[in-house]
């Protein structure tokens, strides 16, 4: 190497300079790409704010706490869609998280190697199904099934109980908040499963085998070794699923019943933010009406942002406690 530098110093220097320049250009280029995302996000936020402004000015804080959504009198409030969005997402998480966990655990801890790949691919394929297909399937297959077989049973059994009985009352329409939540649960399943499985696989075999060697049961290994090791990844997977559940539009629109009402029963129709926008945007004629729909979009943006921030904070808190 030293010989080379002595032999042709000028050429080497110029080459080094060229490499340096290339590196700089590369930095600018990739930095530009990253900046583009920020600009795009900023642009979207600004245009949504601009569009939502007339509604926000007109209704103020009342927009958040009013249940009325009346295009005829132009009185708009977002409480029912906010409520529906949160409730369907919670149901989706109640269904998706335990199922996704179970599948991921089975695949990484107990599954015979022959089945591992086909099962994994099947779960990933679920993620590839377009949401409109889930919607149509939900409307034509799942909803009639729930209407004739599941909901009458729920009404007769759980509906009779004190406290939680109120959640399962009313006529069995088949479609409604519960059905939408179930569909969402199926839709978020592949996200949660795929990510938790991948992070479970990153646990060093040494750790796992040591625990088994000490005589731990599978559950003990998972709870005390695998989960603490993969916490960040698991929370990330759940958040990705929750993000999808909060924003999912088409499948929900088909099966939620689309009523701007808040009902105590999960069997009753409701609406979500994205379903309301999808339903009404095309034929919304008044300026205040359109603006209110855009304001709903802004709210969804804020909710999603809030959920992601909360997840980050929770994760940091957990990490700190573990460090202490």
């Amino acid at each position, binding site marked *: 190497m030293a010989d080379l530098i002595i032999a042709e110093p000028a050429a080497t220097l110029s080459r080094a300079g060229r490499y340096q320049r290339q590196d700089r250009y590369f930095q600018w280029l990739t930095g530009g790409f990253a900046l583009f995302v920020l600009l795009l996000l900023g642009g979207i936020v600004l245009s949504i704010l601009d569009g939502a402004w007339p509604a926000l000015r007109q209704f103020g804080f009342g927009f958040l706490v009013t249940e009325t959504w009346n295009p005829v009198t132009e009185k708009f409030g977002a409480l029912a869609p906010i409520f529906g969005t949160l409730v369907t997402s919670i149901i989706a998480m109640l269904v998706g998280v335990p199922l996704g966990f179970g599948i991921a655990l089975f695949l990484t801890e107990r599954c015979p190697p022959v089945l591992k790949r086909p099962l994994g691919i099947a779960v990933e394929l679920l993620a590839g199904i377009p949401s409109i297909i889930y919607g149509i399937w939900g409307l034509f297959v799942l*909803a009639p099934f729930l209407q004739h077989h599941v909901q009458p049973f729920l009404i007769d059994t759980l509906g009779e109980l004190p406290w939680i009985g109120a959640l399962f009352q009313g006529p069995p329409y088949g479609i409604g908040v519960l059905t939408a939540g179930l569909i969402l649960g199926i839709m978020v399943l592949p996200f949660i499963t795929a990510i938790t499985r991948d992070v479970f696989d990153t646990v060093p075999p040494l750790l796992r085998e040591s625990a088994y060697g000490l005589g731990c049961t599978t559950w003990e290994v998972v709870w005390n070794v695998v989960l603490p090791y993969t916490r960040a990844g698991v929370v990330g997977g759940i958040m990705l699923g929750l993000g999808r559940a909060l924003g999912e539009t088409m499948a929900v629109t088909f099966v939620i019943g689309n009523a701007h009402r808040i009902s105590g029963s999960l069997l009753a129709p409701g609406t979500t933010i994205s379903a309301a926008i999808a339903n009404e945007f*095309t034929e919304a004629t008044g300026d205040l009406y359109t603006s209110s729909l855009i304001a709903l979009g802004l709210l969804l943006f804020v909710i999603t942002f809030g959920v992601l921030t909360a997840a980050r904070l929770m994760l940091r808190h957990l990490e700190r406690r573990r460090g202490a």
Partner: protein
Amino acid sequence: MGIMSRFLAAPVLAALVGFGIAGVAPAADISGAGATFPYPVYAKWADSYKKETGTGLNYQSIGSGGGIKQIKAKTVTFGASDAPLKEEELKQDALVQWPMIMGGAVPAINVPGLNPGELTLDGPTLARMYLGEITKWNDPAIAALNKGVKLPSTAIAVVYRSDGSGTNFLFTNYLSKVSKDFEGKVGAAASVQWPTGIGAKGNEGVANMVKQTAGAIGYVEYAYVKQNHMNYAGLINAAGKKVQPDAKSFQAAAANADWAHTPGYAVILTNQPGAESWPITGASFILMHEKVEDPAAAAEALKFFDWAYKKGGKEAEALDYVPMPASVADMVRKTWAAHIKDANGKPVHAG
């Protein structure tokens, strides 16, 4: 809103640019945007018209609201809307409006033991069902209209259309005309706040929901009832006569309307007089500017509409739409000659 209409205009522009590059068509396509309800018949007409004349139609069925915004922004040659614009709004933007095609909404029902058309309802009863005041099929109000028909005690499951639509507008407009109570509590619009019931998306959603639920009542476009062999109810019209939904009763509603004396042809055909008129009938409208910027494009569009009035009737009927009566078409042609002009004040449409 500017951002929105520009966003919607993009596909139209892209399509036009694409055409320019390809350079195969003898003339540019006619561009229009708006209502979704008449889209199938416009598409069918466009197909036949292209075969006959070589001129195509690029119609974006983005909804009436979008169509009105686009024609106001002048990004399309014509806009289409299910609900007519009011005279003031037409004047404000110097727009010309006329009816192009008609259709009707029909109450679809799922009541065990009844044949299609066997049940009869009237406007006030229908309004009370949708207000949640009548909850059983054997309610005295329904029984009084159906003497001799055996009505079950099944609970009524009210189904409405959740997406904003011309069908919603017609239905709520009709109920508002016949029931002061409905007008005050709900009102008429493409989307309204329903006090009761369950919302299904699109005609297909409502049809499906009604079919699945015993005791359900919904409302869908006539074509859906006919093509899906659904059970439906007849209605008592403004003249107090029982009518069944068919092409004849829709046309009767149009024939009895006072087109000549309504500015912008803004007649809403619900609850029209006449012994044979179906009470929930409506026309879908076309909007164009009075002073056109591109006379050649406007002339092509008017030629297409003229052709549709003359030759489109059969195809419309095959799709269960109702063509405009010839008398109305003649009035519209006169309107074109009198109001749609180029920059020099010369009428765009010859003939």
